[in-house]
C-alpha cells in the first residue's frame, strides 16, 4: 500500500482480504471479494461505484452492520491493531457509534418519526455511558454545532426540512466522538443548494475533529470537494485506488475513465450525462475473468478468463490487465 | 392499430397471465385454498348426485342424534337426518349466498369508488361520508336490523328467483352493506389512475366520462377487485352464517349457519353431539380460510409489498 507508506503512524483501520457472502434460500451470493485497504486517522476516503458494486456492504462491514443473512467468508477488519468481530452482532455493539458512526442517506426515514430529534441525538450517548442530563446537554451542543438552534431540538423529524434533517443526522453521528464517520450517500436525497451546504458541513467538522471519513457515493463530483483518496469499486472488488488528484488527472482503469467521462462538464459544453454502455453485473450473474470486460472498450482476450489482481501502480493501486506488468504472456496465448 | 401489434399485444398478455398463474400457484397458501375451494364447489354443484336429495324429518333415515357410523359418516341430527346430506346441501346454499352477495358488493363498491375517485370534489366528499358510515358500522349489525324489517314487509312465503324470501333478503342486505371496504380501495386506485397519461389521451380524444371510467380505468382495477373480492366472500360467509345462526335463515333451504342454529336449538353442545355442530362449522372454517388464503396470495402476487388483511 504504497500510497500511504510515507506516513509512519499505524493505520486506524485495516481491511484485509475481506470477502462477504449473502445467503438467500440456500444460494450464496458474493457481495464483496478480497477487499483490502487502510484508513488513517483524519483521512477522507471515497468509495465510488454503481449500486451493487459492494461499496455499501464494505462500509456496513466496517460499521459492524452486516445484515443477519451476510457471512464473512474470508479476511478481517482490524481497528487500532485488533480484529473486529464483525460477524458477531452482540460483540460489535460497544464498537458501534462510539468508534464508527454512520450518516445515512435520506434522513427522513433514518430518523424515527415518533421521537423528538434531541432525544434521538442523546440516545447513543446514554447507551455509551453518559448520564441522561449530560447526554441532553451534549445533544443541544451538537445541534448548535451543525447550525440548528438548540431549542429546535424539541421538534419531530417531519417538522424539519430535508437539509435540516441531514444536519441532525450529522449531529447524531458525532454524538459519541467517533474516530470514523461513514457517510452513506449523505447528500443524495437533497437539492443542489442543500447538497453543497451539507457537504461543506461534513468536511468542516471532519477537519475540526480530525475524523476519518468514508464517503459512499456514486457521484464523482461530490468526491473532488471532500476527499483525499478515492477507491473505485466494481462488482464486489476494488478496481482502482489512488489520491483524488491522481485519479482525476489520470484515471488508470477503463471503468474509472468512463466514470470520469460521465461527469457533466459545463465548461466543455458537455451537459448531457453520458451513461456507460451495457448493464452492471448482478450478484447472481457475474462475468468470468474481469467483471468489467463485457462493457470495457479496451478488453483483451485475457480479460474474459482471468480476474486481474489489485496491484500497486504508480502511487496508487489498479486491478486491470492493461496495467499489469506481471500478466503472464504464455497464459494469454493458452486461453486465446 | 395494425394486426401485428394486436397479435403481439395478445401474446404479451398471454405471457403475463401465464407468468401470473405460475407465481400464484407457486404460493403454498393459494394451493391449499384452491384445492379446498374446488372440493366445496364440486360438492355444491351436485349434492343430489353425491348424497341424494335433501332429507326432511319425514324422509330422515337414521336414529336421533346418532354418532358417526358406516351408514351415516357424519352422524345424524335430532330428527334423524343424515348430517353429511345436510352439510352437502348446505354448501350449495352457503356458497351461493356468499358469492351473489359478493357480486352485489363488488358492483356497488366499484361504482361508488370509481365515481368518487374520478369526479372528486363534492361527489367524492359525500360518497366517502356514506362509505365511512358503512365502513365503521359492521354489515352484520346493519343486516341484523334491516333483514327482519324487510322480511316483515315482504312476507316469508313463496320463492324469489329460486330462493326463499329470507335468503334472498340476506343476499341483498349483505351485498348492500359490505361494499365500503371495496369502495375505499377502488377510490384510492382510481385517484392514481386518473393522473396517468392514457386517461388524458382518452379525454383529449373525446371519450365521455363514463366511457373513460368503464373502458380505461376499470380494466386496471381488476387486480384490486379480485384480491379484495376473495376477502369479501370470506366476510359474506361469516355474516350469512351469523345471521342464519340467529334464526334469520330458512329451514327449507338450510345453509351451514341454519344447521348450526338448529344444532344449538337441539342442544347439540350440551348433549355432546359434536358431529352435528362440528361438521357445518368445519365447512365454514375451511371455505372462509380458503378465500382468505387465495385473497392473500392474489394480493402478494399483484403487489408483493402490501397485504390486504386489515
Amino acid at each position, binding site marked *: 500500500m504504497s500510497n500511504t507508506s510515507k506516513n509512519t503512524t499505524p493505520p486506524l483501520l485495516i481491511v484485509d482480504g475481506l470477502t462477504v457472502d449473502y445467503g438467500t434460500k440456500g444460494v450464496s451470493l458474493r457481495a464483496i471479494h478480497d477487499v483490502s485497504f487502510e484508513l488513517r486517522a483524519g483521512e477522507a476516503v471515497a468509495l465510488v461505484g454503481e449500486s451493487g458494486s459492494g461499496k455499501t456492504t464494505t462500509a456496513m462491514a466496517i*460499521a459492524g*452492520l452486516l445484515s443477519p443473512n451476510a457471512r464473512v467468508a474470508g479476511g478481517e477488519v482490524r481497528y487500532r491493531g485488533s480484529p473486529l468481530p464483525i460477524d458477531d452482532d*452482540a460483540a460489535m*455493539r*460497544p*464498537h*458501534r*457509534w462510539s468508534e464508527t458512526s454512520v450518516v*445515512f442517506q435520506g434522513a427522513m*426515514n*433514518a*430518523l*424515527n*418519526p*415518533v421521537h423528538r430529534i434531541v432525544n434521538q441525538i442523546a*440516545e*447513543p450517548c446514554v447507551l*455509551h455511558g453518559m448520564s441522561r442530563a449530560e447526554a441532553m446537554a451534549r445533544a443541544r451542543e451538537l445541534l448548535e454545532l451543525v447550525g440548528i438552534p438548540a431549542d429546535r431540538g424539541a421538534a*419531530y423529524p417531519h417538522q424539519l426540512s430535508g437539509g435540516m434533517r441531514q444536519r441532525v443526522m450529522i449531529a*447524531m453521528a458525532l454524538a459519541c466522538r467517533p474516530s470514523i464517520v461513514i457517510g452513506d450517500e449523505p447528500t443524495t436525497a437533497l437539492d443542489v443548494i442543500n447538497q453543497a451546504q451539507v457537504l461543506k458541513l461534513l468536511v468542516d467538522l471532519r477537519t475540526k475533529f480530525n475524523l476519518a471519513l468514508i464517503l459512499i457515493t456514486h457521484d464523482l463530483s461530490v468526491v473532488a470537494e471532500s476527499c483525499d483518496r478515492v477507491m473505485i469499486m466494481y462488482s464486489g472488488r476494488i478496481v482502482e485506488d489512488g489520491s483524488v488528484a491522481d485519479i482525476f488527472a489520470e484515471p488508470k482503469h477503463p471503468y474509472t475513465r468512463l466514470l470520469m467521462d460521465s461527469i457533466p462538464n459545463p465548461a466543455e459544453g458537455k451537459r448531457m450525462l453520458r451513461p456507460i454502455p451495457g448493464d452492471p453485473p448482478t450478484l447472481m450473474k457475474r462475468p468470468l475473468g474481469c467483471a468489467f470486460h463485457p462493457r470495457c472498450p479496451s478488453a483483451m482476450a485475457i480479460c474474459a478468463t482471468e480476474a486481474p489482481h489489485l496491484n500497486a501502480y504508480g502511487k496508487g493501486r489498479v486491478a486491470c490487465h492493461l496495467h499489469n506488468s506481471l500478466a503472464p504472456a504464455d497464459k494469454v496465448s493458452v486461453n486465446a | 392499430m395494425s394486426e401485428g401489434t394486436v397479435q403481439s399485444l395478445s401474446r404479451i398478455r398471454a405471457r403475463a397471465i401465464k407468468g401470473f398463474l405460475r407465481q400464484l400457484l407457486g404460493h403454498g397458501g393459494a394451493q391449499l385454498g384452491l384445492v379446498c375451494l374446488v372440493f366445496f364447489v364440486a360438492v355444491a354443484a351436485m349434492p343430489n348426485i353425491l348424497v341424494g336429495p335433501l332429507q326432511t324429518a319425514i324422509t330422515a333415515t337414521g336414529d336421533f342424534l346418532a354418532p358417526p357410523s358406516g351408514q351415516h359418516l357424519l352422524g345424524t341430527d335430532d330428527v334423524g337426518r343424515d348430517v353429511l346430506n345436510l352439510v352437502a346441501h348446505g354448501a350449495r346454499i352457503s356458497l351461493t349466498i356468499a358469492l351473489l352477495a359478493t357480486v352485489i358488493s363488488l358492483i356497488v363498491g366499484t361504482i361508488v369508488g370509481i365515481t368518487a375517485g374520478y369526479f372528486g370534489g363534492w361527489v367524492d366528499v359525500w360518497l366517502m*361520508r356514506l362509505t*365511512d*358510515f358503512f365502513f*365503521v*358500522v359492521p354489515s*352484520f*349489525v*346493519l343486516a*341484523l*336490523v*334491516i333483514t*327482519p*324489517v324487510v322480511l*316483515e314487509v315482504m312476507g316469508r312465503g313463496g320463492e324469489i328467483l329460486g330462493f326463499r324470501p329470507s335468503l334472498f333478503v340476506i343476499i341483498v342486505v349483505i351485498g348492500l352493506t359490505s361494499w365500503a371496504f371495496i369502495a375505499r380501495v377502488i377510490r384510492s386506485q382510481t385517484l392514481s389512475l386518473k393522473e396517468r397519461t392514457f386517461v388524458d389521451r382518452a379525454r383529449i380524444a373525446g371519450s365521455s366520462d363514463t366511457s373513460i371510467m368503464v373502458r380505461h380505468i376499470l380494466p386496471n382495477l381488476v387486480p384490486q377487485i379480485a384480491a379484495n373480492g376473495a376477502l369479501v366472500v*370470506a366476510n359474506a360467509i*361469516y355474516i350469512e*352464517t*351469523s345471521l342464519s*345462526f*340467529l*334464526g*334469520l335463515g330458512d329451514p327449507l333451504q338450510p345453509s351451514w349457519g341454519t344447521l*348450526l342454529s338448529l344444532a*344449538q336449538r337441539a342442544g347439540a*353442545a*350440551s*348433549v*355432546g353431539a359434536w358431529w352435528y*355442530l*362440528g361438521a357445518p*362449522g368445519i365447512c*365454514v*372454517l375451511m371455505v*372462509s*380460510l380458503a378465500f*382468505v*388464503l387465495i385473497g392473500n396470495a392474489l394480493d402478494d402476487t399483484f403487489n408483493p409489498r402490501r*397485504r390486504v*388483511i*386489515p
Partner: protein
Amino acid sequence: MSRRIGAIFLRAMMTLLMVATLNFILFRVIPGDPASLLLGGARISVTAEQIEAQRQSWGLDRPLFPDQVVDYLSATVHGDFGYSFKFRGRHVADLILERLPATIALVGLAQFIAILCGVMLGVYAGWRRGGGIDHVATGASLALYSTPSFWLGMLLVVIFSTALGWLPGYGASSPGATIGFVAWLLDYLRHLALPVFAVALGLIGQYVVVARAAMSDVVTEDYMVTARAKGLTNGQMLMRHAFRNAMLPVVTLVSLNLGYVVAGAITVEAVFAWPGIGGLTVEALNARDYPVLQGVFLLLGVSIVIANLIADLAYGLLDPRVKQ
C-alpha cells in the same frame, strides 16, 4: 389541532345521524303505522295509554318531514327509544341499561385478553419473521380469523362443559346457593370464562395478523438500521423504536373493531344464553321486537362512534405527525 378534533366530532355526529335516520326509516317502512304495529306486535302486553303516549311523542298524526323526524330525533336524544313489544311494554332504554353490564364485562375482558395476547404474539412474530413461532402463530391466526366465534363457543361447550365438566356452559349464575359477594363473583366469573374465551380467541386471530403485518413493515424501516448502528440491543430496538411505530395501525384497528367485537359477542351470547345485549337482541329478533332491535342498533352506533373518537385521539398522541 383543534380543527382536526372539530372535523373528528363532525364526522362522529354524521355517523350517529345516519344511524338514527336508518332507524326512523326502517320503523316507518313496516306496513301500518308504528303505533298500531306496536299494538299488533305487542299483542296484549301494551296498554292503550302507552300507545297514545307513543303516538303523541312521535307526533304520528303530523307530516313525516320535518315534524316526525324532528320529534323522533329529539325523543332519541332524550333517551326515549319507545316501548318493548315483548317485555310487557317496558322502556327499551331500561331494558338495554339492565343488560349492558353483562356485555361490557364480556366484551371488555375478551378485548383485554385479546389485546394482551394477540398484540404481543403478533409483534413477536413480526419481529422474528420467518421463525418457528411466526409460522405457528400466523397459521393459527388465519384459522381463527376465518372461524365464527359463536362456533368456537359451541366447541368450547362441548369440550370444557359437556365432556370435561370443568366450566358451566349456560347462563350467568348457578341456581341455588350463591351467598355473599365473593361466592357470587366467583360463580359469575366461572360462567363468564367460556364466552370470554370464545370472543377472545377470534379477536386474537385478527390482532396477531395486524400486529405482525405492522411489525414486519417497521423492521424494514431505515430508522431501525440507525438504531442498530447506534449500538442498541435487540430488546432496546424493539421497545424504543419498533414497538410504538408498530402500534399505530394496531391502535386504529383495535378501536375501530369495537363494533365487530360487539357484533361477534351477540352470537356468542346466544350460544351461552349470556344475559347481555346479545341475548336481548336474539330474544328481540325472535319476537320481532323492533323497538328493542333499534335501540340496540343505536347503542352500537354510539359505542362505535365513541370508539372511533378514542382511536383518532389516541392516534394523535402516539404519532406526532398527525397533529397539524
